[in-house]
């Protein structure tokens, strides 16, 4: 059975299941003649086997919170000038601009929260709320979330929980309401903003051995995931534009050498965790870094201006 037929079979079986749920309350009554005309296919076992081969694919980018944590853990300093000013929030009126800048502002507020920039965090939370409201995302960021931030301004754990939850509310609302293209656009906005801040924070005088440069090289591992995520919504004009921009970025990432050896597992009794051990070889020249930095800045500026 080819893939198209297999998917059709799976959809058909799930469809039959849905109908059986709806009509479940009729069980025990005599079937009408019309009911008798709709029969389950004889090859249900075959279809069940096809389900075994069907797959749902999820492509997970680093969240804005994770990106901000990576920047901080690399020892980078906070720089407010790198964030997208909240004063620009009223200039975003299209769905694409609002989705991109929902991601951008969410990354900026994550960055502000990790560096304990409390007033900035609240300002950026309000800007992200405006983007979410503009996209019709209900209950993504509520006033009570902002109040909770203000009440727990010195409690980093609560702040991180609120930031994480607002991000989840936005992306899940869009996914659950049949707007995967808008959800993907927001994720791209957040990822590019994290990469922009990282590249701008690299001091070229301390390029060699710079931990932040290592984290930027690691983003090469996510570029194909990003393209796959966008390809899921290929054909949507705003997404097609993003695919062109991200493909340009991929050509620069492709110039960076990154090879990984076999991964071996080792259990660490002290922390009760498994350690994944592997040898990695990377190489990025300052010239390639500058090209990457320029390309990221161009894309990011096209999002925020």
């Amino acid at each position, binding site marked *: 059975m080819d893939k198209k037929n297999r998917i059709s079979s799976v959809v058909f079986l799930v469809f039959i299941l849905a109908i059986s749920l709806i009509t479940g309350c009729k069980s025990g009554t005599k079937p009408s003649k019309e009911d008798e*005309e709709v029969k389950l296919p004889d090859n249900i076992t075959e279809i069940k086997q096809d389900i075994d081969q069907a797959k749902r694919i999820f492509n997970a980018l680093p969240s804005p919170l*994770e990106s901000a944590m990576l920047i901080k853990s690399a020892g980078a300093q906070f720089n407010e000038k790198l964030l997208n000013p909240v004063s620009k929030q009223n200039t975003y009126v299209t769905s694409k601009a609002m989705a991109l800048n929902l991601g951008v502002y969410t990354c900026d507020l994550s960055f502000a929260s990790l560096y304990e920039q409390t007033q900035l965090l609240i300002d950026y939370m309000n800007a992200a709320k405006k983007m979410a409201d503009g996209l019709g995302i209900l209950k993504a960021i509520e006033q009570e979330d902002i109040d909770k931030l203000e009440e727990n301004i010195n409690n980093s754990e609560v702040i*991180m929980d609120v930031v994480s939850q607002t*991000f989840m509310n936005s992306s899940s609302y869009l996914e659950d309401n049949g707007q995967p293209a808008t959800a993907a656009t927001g994720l791209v906005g957040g990822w590019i903003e994290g990469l922009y801040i990282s590249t701008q924070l690299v001091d070229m005088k301390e390029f060699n051995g710079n931990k932040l440069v290592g*984290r930027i090289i*690691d983003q090469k591992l996510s570029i194909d995931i990003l393209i796959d995520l966008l390809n899921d919504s290929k054909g949507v004009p705003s997404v097609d534009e993003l695919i062109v921009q991200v493909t340009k970025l991929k050509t620069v990432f492709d110039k960076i050498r990154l090879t990984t050896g076999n991964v071996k597992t080792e259990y660490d009794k002290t922390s*009760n965790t498994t350690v994944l051990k592997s040898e990695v070889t990377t190489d990025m020249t300052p010239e390639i870094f500058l090209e990457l930095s320029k390309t990221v800045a161009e894309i990011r500026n096209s999002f925020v201006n």
Partner: protein
Amino acid sequence: MRLIKTLPVLAILFFAISYQADAQCKKFAKDECLPELSGHGYTHDGNYHAAVLVEGEEAELYKTFYSDMEYRVAIVGESKLPAVEFKIMDVNKNVLYSNKDNAYAPTWDFKLQSSQQLKIVVKVSSFNKPGDTPASGCVAIMFGFKLKK
């Protein structure tokens, strides 16, 4: 012929039900999966992956994990489903972990010497009752992280 005529209407109904089911998964993910992270010192990364899966159905997730972090993956299925299996694989398709070898534990904690893209394969196992309507329910996949000590 009647079936063919009614299919478009029923298809719309099916998609409406799908959206409703996915929306219910969000509540399930928050109530049942999230506590596996936040109650154990991990910060949820904010990403949301949940779907209604049918008995025997498989899902794959691709994600990059970073060397500076400690991670917990939590994969939880609704109680009406049979056991949910998951495997973690590297880019060369080597299986690094399978929860089947650990009594179908819903979580796995790990850290990395170097950043890696990993593939997570989730499969709802089967009750093995031929002829029965396959069970279906929400499966949530979530990640928590904390800085490596």
